[in-house]
């Protein structure tokens, strides 16, 4: 296989972006969609070829291409260069595969939207940057994709820019990500200062050869972690992701599943050599991951907006991936990243289908009983719910179980605590996902049926705004009055939307089977596939002595998931009203969760407001208005009082200034030239 083909993988979506971005406005919708799909399918095809090539016997472990320099100064150079190893291959598969399905879905979902061409141009741009990110063979090129997906998400989240909430959410996503980028940049500055290069292989070789650990490695690793918390929505920078659902639903699927949020996990996995040299940084990663997983899951318990529940579940699941990396099992993190891409892509697209069916309704309190009305959506979404909850034999079961088992057995007492947190989160996840499932598809219908409107997301945004204002006052779990459902209006989505759902549902079921551990009768092919990247030279063969423990762990986590599902069933199907009663009983706790621990408010009051106040009062008012401008005024005032001669300078007559200048210069020249004799020395 010609490695030069690697260039085509990102360039094709970029070409699609350029085409649709420049002339798309004048093209018919069918052509716009065709361009976007074609320029996404082609890289997927190349990736498939690449996959076959890399799996073949005797294939190199990594494939590289290099072009001319991007930045070149004496002593420092960065080239346009791509490398594909097995880790990149997995990411490429996810991005192009799931990304392509989301593109197909969008054709149906966006069919009636304004700015169709703009939407597809941005989607292709998103793919381009994400592909650059995983193909990059240096930190700086990775950063191109890193910032680029930030830009693409800014454009897509703020797609309905006439709506303030969407414009705000886009801006928030970009700026919060910039806080993370600040860390990433500082890490790169340190790398340049210490290694004089940003090339992955050079740096990692040097680090791997280093007998030291901690110190500078910890500093760099922690700064990279800050970057990763921004992109992968972890504490403390997760706040942009729940707001990101302001964009059209396929965008949420793209951001949450195939692109963007996976970047942080990928980056940590890519830098595993560095992290392995810093136990402190790994501990931080593990703790952030576990804390975020639990924290986001608790918020997810009480949300009413179907997309918001999914958004917090993403934050929580990303926490698992962080946890996996933090305990040093990067391949488990990537495994969960992959299965999560399947089931979260599925869940978002299915939620979009639900919203589509209900003409823009996103509040689960106004859903219910949809099982029979939109059966394909129901069955596919069920696969997603089972997968994310970790029900055997769905994909999420295997990946989550691997993370939990590795956390429990990695030795330190802290990790046992983290394992417990992970297990608890698994139960919570199962609970809130089944809550979503029951509230949406079971029970009585609670919606008022309307004729289909065509601006789904605009409408959805309007509703979301209404509900946001509602939830600012304390609303309990009490269900709103059931409304009279009419027979028409609720409809299953067209095949362009259901086809991706079906494919993703199948993947959510079988996608985990590539990673069945030996203890459960599989071969753990996924770990073996990634072994050359993460455990080069290490023996990762399973130890039969541990099979018993691993089986116990699997059973425990399955039981926990089933318990969560059971409680959800009890609360929302068997005895509806239990939840409301509990919420009323623990009013303050409920309020805390309902307001997402007030984190946005705390950031606003203790970070953003002080910055603005300091800027306005101290910097602009006192320093700039007082001292800097005061100096200027003082300068003028002192000259004014300096007598007649100087007052002339203040005349405001510009010609006289020139005159003074010339005269003054002449005097000084005269003194210098004629005060001395001849040229000195």
């Amino acid at each position, binding site marked *: 296989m010609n490695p030069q083909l690697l260039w085509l993988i990102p360039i094709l979506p970029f070409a699609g972006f350029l085409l649709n971005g420049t002339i798309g406005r004048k093209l018919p919708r069918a052509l716009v969609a065709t361009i976007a799909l074609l320029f996404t399918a082609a890289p997927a095809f190349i990736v498939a070829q690449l996959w076959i090539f890399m799996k073949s016997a005797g294939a190199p472990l990594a494939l590289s291409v290099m072009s001319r320099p991007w*930045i070149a100064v*004496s002593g420092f150079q960065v080239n346009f260069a791509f490398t594909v190893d097995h880790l990149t291959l997995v990411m490429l598969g996810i991005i192009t595969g799931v990304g392509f399905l989301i593109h197909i879905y969008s054709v149906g979902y966006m069919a009636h939207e304004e700015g169709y061409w703009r939407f597809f141009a941005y989607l292709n741009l998103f793919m381009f940057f994400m592909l650059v990110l995983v193909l990059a063979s240096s930190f700086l090129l990775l950063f191109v994709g890193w910032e680029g997906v930030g830009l693409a998400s800014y454009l897509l989240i703020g797609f309905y*820019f*006439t709506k303030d909430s969407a414009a705000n959410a886009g801006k928030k996503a970009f700026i919060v990500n*910039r806080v993370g980028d600040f860390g990433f940049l500082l890490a790169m500055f340190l790398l340049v200062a210490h290694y004089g290069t940003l090339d992955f292989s050079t740096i990692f070789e040097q680090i791997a050869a280093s007998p030291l650990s901690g110190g500078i490695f910890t500093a760099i690793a922690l700064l990279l972690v800050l970057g990763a918390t921004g992109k992968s929505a972890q504490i403390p920078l997760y706040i942009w992701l729940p707001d990101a659902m302001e964009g059209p639903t396929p965008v949420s699927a793209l951001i949450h599943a195939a692109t963007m949020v996976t970047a942080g996990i990928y980056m940590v996995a890519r830098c595993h050599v560095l992290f392995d040299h810093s136990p402190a940084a790994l501990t931080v990663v593990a703790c952030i991951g576990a804390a975020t997983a639990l924290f986001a899951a608790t918020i997810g318990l009480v949300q009413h907006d179907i997309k918001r529940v999914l958004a917090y579940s993403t934050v929580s699941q990303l926490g698992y991936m962080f946890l996996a990396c933090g305990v040093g099992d990067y391949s488990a993190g990537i495994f969960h990243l992959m299965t999560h891409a399947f089931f979260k892509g599925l869940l978002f697209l299915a939620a979009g289908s639900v919203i589509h069916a209900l003409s823009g309704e996103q509040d689960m309190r106004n859903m219910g009983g949809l099982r029979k009305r939109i059966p394909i959506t129901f069955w596919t979404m069920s696969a997603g719910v089972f997968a994310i909850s970790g029900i055997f034999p769905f994909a999420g079961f295997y990946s989550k179980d691997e993370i939990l088992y590795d956390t429990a057995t990695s030795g330190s007492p802290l990790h046992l605590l983290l394992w417990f947190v992970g297990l608890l989160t698994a139960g919570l996840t199962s609970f809130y996902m089944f809550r979503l499932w029951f509230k949406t598809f079971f029970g009585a219908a609670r919606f008022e049926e309307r004729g289909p409107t065509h601006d789904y997301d605009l409408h959805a945004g309007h509703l979301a705004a209404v509900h946001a204002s509602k939830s600012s006052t304390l609303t309990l779990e009490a269900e709103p009055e059931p409304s009279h459902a009419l027979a028409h209006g609720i409809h299953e989505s067209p095949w362009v939307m259901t086809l991706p759902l079906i494919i993703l549902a199948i993947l959510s079921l079988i996608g985990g089977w590539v990673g069945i551990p030996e203890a459960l009768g599989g071969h753990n092919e996924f770990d073996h596939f990634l072994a050359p990247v993460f455990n080069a030279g290490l023996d990762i063969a399973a130890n039969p002595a541990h099979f018993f423990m691993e089986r116990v762990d699997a059973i425990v986590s399955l039981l926990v998931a089933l318990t969560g599902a059971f409680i959800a069933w009890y609360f929302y199907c068997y005895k509806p009203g239990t939840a409301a009663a509990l919420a009323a009983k623990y009013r303050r706790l409920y309020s805390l969760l309902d307001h997402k621990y007030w984190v946005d408010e705390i950031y606003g009051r203790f970070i953003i407001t002080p910055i603005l106040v300091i800027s306005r009062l101290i910097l602009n008012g006192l*320093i700039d208005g007082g*001292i800097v401008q005061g100096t200027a005024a003082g300068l*003028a005032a002192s000259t004014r009082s300096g007598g007649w001669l100087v007052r002339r300078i203040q005349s405001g007559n510009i010609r006289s200034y020139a005159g003074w*200048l010339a005269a003054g210069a002449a005097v000084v020249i005269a003194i210098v030239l004629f005060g001395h004799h001849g040229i000195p020395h």
Partner: protein
Amino acid sequence: MNFDPIILTLIIATPLAGAILLACIPEREGSKTHAIGALLISLLTLLLTLHLPSHFNYHAAPRTFQFEQNLSWIPSPNIRYHLGVDGLSMWLIVLAAFLAPIGVLASWNAIHTRTKLFYTLFLLQQVAMLGIFAALDLFLYYGFWELSLVPITILIATFGRTENRRRAAIKFFLYAFIPSAILLVAILWLYNLTGTFDLPTLQYLALTHHLAATPTALLLCSIAFLVAFAVKVPVFPLHGWLQDAVAEAPTAAVMVLAGKLGLYSILRFSFGIFPEQSRHVAPVLIALGAIGIVYGSLIALIKTDLKKLAAFSTLAHVSFVILGIFTFTVIGLDGGVFQILNESLIGAALFVLLGLLYERYGTYDMRDYGGLATRHPWMVTMFVITVLAAAGLPMLNGFVGEFLILSGSMQSIATHHILWTVIAATGVIFGASYLLWMIQRVFYGKIGVRPDEVPGWDLTAREHLELWPFAALFLAMGVASPFWMRAIDIYGASTAGKLVEVGHGLYKNTANGEYSFNDQEYSRWCLDHPGHCRVEVRFVVSTPKEAR
């Protein structure tokens, strides 16, 4: 015919001849004669400047000048007509010439009265700028430097936007003029000391430690130079003139107001004649640079006047350059010089865009705007591209400069350099914040008060012509930076590094362990200039490491 020796004279003479020509053509009401004339002249100048990159010798020895013209002008005092460019100034000359036609186009409709005065002064300003970048004789340079103050001041005072224009012009003039007068004294003191205004000569004398004055006197002299330039940049906290001048100045003038002239002068003269003293004050300037970045960005965050916001954005961007060049690392200097180009282009594009908004809606108050994205799809596209370049998005030009500058700052050996790097790097957060906030206030949300009253139109063909070159350059310079960096790096590599004393009071200037100062060259120079080498020096001859 070989144009090399006279090309710089041609480049400077063209706008000068144009200015004289325009001054002779009588002005008629509503006629575009002067605008067309200025456009043609500036295009011709741009064409001439393209000779420089196409004939530049990238293998020339460091610290040498190309396209030199060195004639005796006045024998006593020894003033020479000495022009020349090196890796530092070449692209700056092209940049200045590139911005001129765009400045004319941006003034096409904005300036409709007193066009003769406007375009004559505009071309004079071009003469001064090109002269500053090309002059290698201190006296000649000073002439152009002073000349650069006058047209701008008159342009602000005459064509300013509000009643505040005269005050703004006077403030600008006083700020620039008083330090310049001190600069003149310093130049003359140097002449008194060495008997020459010639920059290459002075550079050699400085690097060979032959400026026969006390360290204190030299330090004071270097500070006189530095302050004059720093005010023009402006370096925080000497930016008192910036806000009003930017707010008042017409687009074509605001494009040349801040940044490149002062920054170039620091690099050429402060670093050239006072290498040791500049390193001495570097920690202070690094701190001021870092503070300026954050300070400018934070104030931009709360400004509601678009022009004032852009003024503080300019302060933040030139502060990046200050931070970079005073690290005295190769990447810091290269990035800093590259960032001068970026800052000028991005700033100019931003001011052109703001001018377009003002032409349509007659206000710079962003509270009156909103929702323009649906009305001006092309304008918002250009705005977003410009803002992304300013915010340092990779693959656009701003990123290359900022990245190199901050990397250089991390490598610097100045005290507290890590602290200042961290502080400066917060600029990437605040920078994105105020820029995206501006975009949102002007273009997103609901249609604002002002656009509701006044109909607007998307970009005209002329406006497309003004803006696309910027967008193309942002991308080209962001993706293919080595094309520009190659020349800049020659300057950067020969200026960076510690000054190492190699014996007999002779300094060597090292970067990356390479000797960029050539002893033999110096000894030859001493033979050519009897009387200048006051101390008999036996050179420590060492083989220069293999050239890159």
